């Protein structure tokens, strides 16, 4: 059926998008890889095949530390978000009456659509020294002195968890409502308790959805600059924050590029670890 003319026409349709992706994504990516192997002599850039930037990552404590901090924060956020989002998705899927479910889900994820700069600022307001949380706790007599909540890792994690609980509620809910109620009935007919049904039937069946959501959380969390910068302050730096410092202060593009490549390496490892359960086509 397909003639050469039709095939050429097909290429004509695909070409603009391919060219755009190639010119503005693939090429920059290759140049960034090359840049990570270049060195800086004062302010002059020397292209080459040097692994000096990567060696620096192992040598300089603040660079190494940033990778550890990023991993710690990202893993904490991923685990806490899944643990908090699962019951929420469950309640919306099984406790909320059918005709209110769509509304409940829409409401549960509406603040997801706030700009991430604005969302982080809003958390800064909530967690500030004289902010809502401290004032409320002081008034209730729960604390005598305002707590330092902003500019801490706690603030960064809270800001992240807020965002990813909404994202994960959406993905886990989609997974739960696809389950046929027959699975639960069958397990219960065979004498399984509610917990056994969950542990041996529902949880394994929803695992792909959980892992897909958790992987998305991991990728988006480890690459974010805004949330740790606004909420965490400068007490400890994540990899994206260190990348931005390199760009700003010394215009050290080679080191920034090397850090970006390391970040991508970490994401690739996470992908390989999760690949067994990942259903990226089902997002």
């Amino acid at each position, binding site marked *: *059926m397909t003639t050469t003319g*039709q*095939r050429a*026409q*097909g*290429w004509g*349709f*695909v070409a*603009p*998008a*391919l060219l*755009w*992706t190639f010119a*503005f*994504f*693939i090429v*920059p*990516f290759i*140049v*960034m890889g090359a840049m990570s192997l270049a060195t800086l002599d004062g302010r002059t850039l020397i292209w080459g095949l040097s692994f000096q930037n990567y060696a620096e990552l192992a040598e300089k404590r603040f660079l190494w530390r940033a990778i550890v901090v990023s991993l710690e924060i990202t893993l904490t956020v991923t685990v806490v978000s899944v643990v908090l989002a699962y*019951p*929420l998705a469950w*309640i*919306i899927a099984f*406790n909320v009456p059918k005709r209110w479910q769509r509304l409940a889900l829409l409401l*549960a994820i*509406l*603040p997801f*659509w706030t*700009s*991430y*700069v*604005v969302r982080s*600022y*809003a958390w*800064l*307001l*909530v967690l*500030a020294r*004289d*902010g*809502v949380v401290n*004032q409320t706790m002081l008034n209730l007599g729960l604390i005598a002195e305002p707590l330092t909540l902003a500019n801490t890792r706690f603030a960064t994690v809270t800001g992240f968890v*807020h965002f990813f*609980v*909404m994202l994960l509620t959406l993905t886990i809910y989609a997974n739960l409502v696809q389950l046929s109620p027959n699975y639960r009935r069958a397990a219960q007919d065979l004498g399984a308790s509610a917990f056994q049904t969950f542990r041996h039937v529902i949880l394994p069946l929803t695992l792909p959805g959980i892992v897909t959501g958790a992987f998305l959380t991991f990728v988006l969390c*480890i*690459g*974010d*600059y*805004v949330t740790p910068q*606004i909420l965490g302050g400068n007490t400890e730096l994540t990899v994206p924050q260190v*990348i931005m410092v390199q*760009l700003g202060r010394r215009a050290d*593009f080679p080191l920034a*590029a090397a850090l970006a490549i390391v*970040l*991508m390496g970490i*994401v690739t490892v996470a*992908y390989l670890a999760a690949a067994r359960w990942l259903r990226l086509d089902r997002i």
Partner: protein
Amino acid sequence: MMRLLPWMYLAVAFVFIYLPVATLVLFSFQDGQLPVPPFNGPSLRWYGDVLGDSRLTAALINSVLVALGASLIAVTLGFLAAYGLARHVLPGSALIRALLIAPLTVSYLIVGLGLLIVLTQAGLGLSLVTAGIGHVVINLPLAFAIIFAAMGAQQQNAERAARDLGANEMQVILLVTVPMLAPAIGAAFFLSMTFSWDEFIISFLLTRFDVTLPVEIWSMLRSGLSPRLNAIGSLVFLVSIAVVLTLELFVFRKRRS
């Protein structure tokens, strides 16, 4: 007690989810210099202040222009690629699809950094256009995936019928395919608009003198908490919500019915 537990969890979850947004909006009406308790007001002075600020209104217009331009290009390119891949047998089509989706797997910071390196090495200046180019890179995979998923056999039959009746390729696309795919194209466009409207890091790296609204808000943040920031933040939130609700009410509802 056990029966109440799920509803209590739901209530606590909603408090957590809405606490920052509610605080943001409430203290945008603060009649005073600090957006923290106690609340005095309501007052609209900070909204007046924000709307009278020429830098903010310029940034707002820039944001709308970048979002519109980047979304139009992303949806057009995404639609053409989806049409080409769905209607023509091309060698290596799985590879092409993977390539078009690839930018989704990379963080915005890295997309922006790569473009920044290329632009500075090529000696090209930074502007709203370069930020827009970056926004197309992140929105194109999404637009392509949404439209490609919606292309099915029923449109193909209608396209064949139109061709048999003498329509040329251009007429088939514009008069048959696009109208039949309108919900998917609309969804792709509105999603692109919200992502572009909210996007910060690419705009921050790739603009210089004229900036978008999130970048302008970022520079205001350096001077600390202020009800002005609450007012502009609430307005940004309102616009995002309006776009999402439009999408929910007009695009997704239509698609389901």
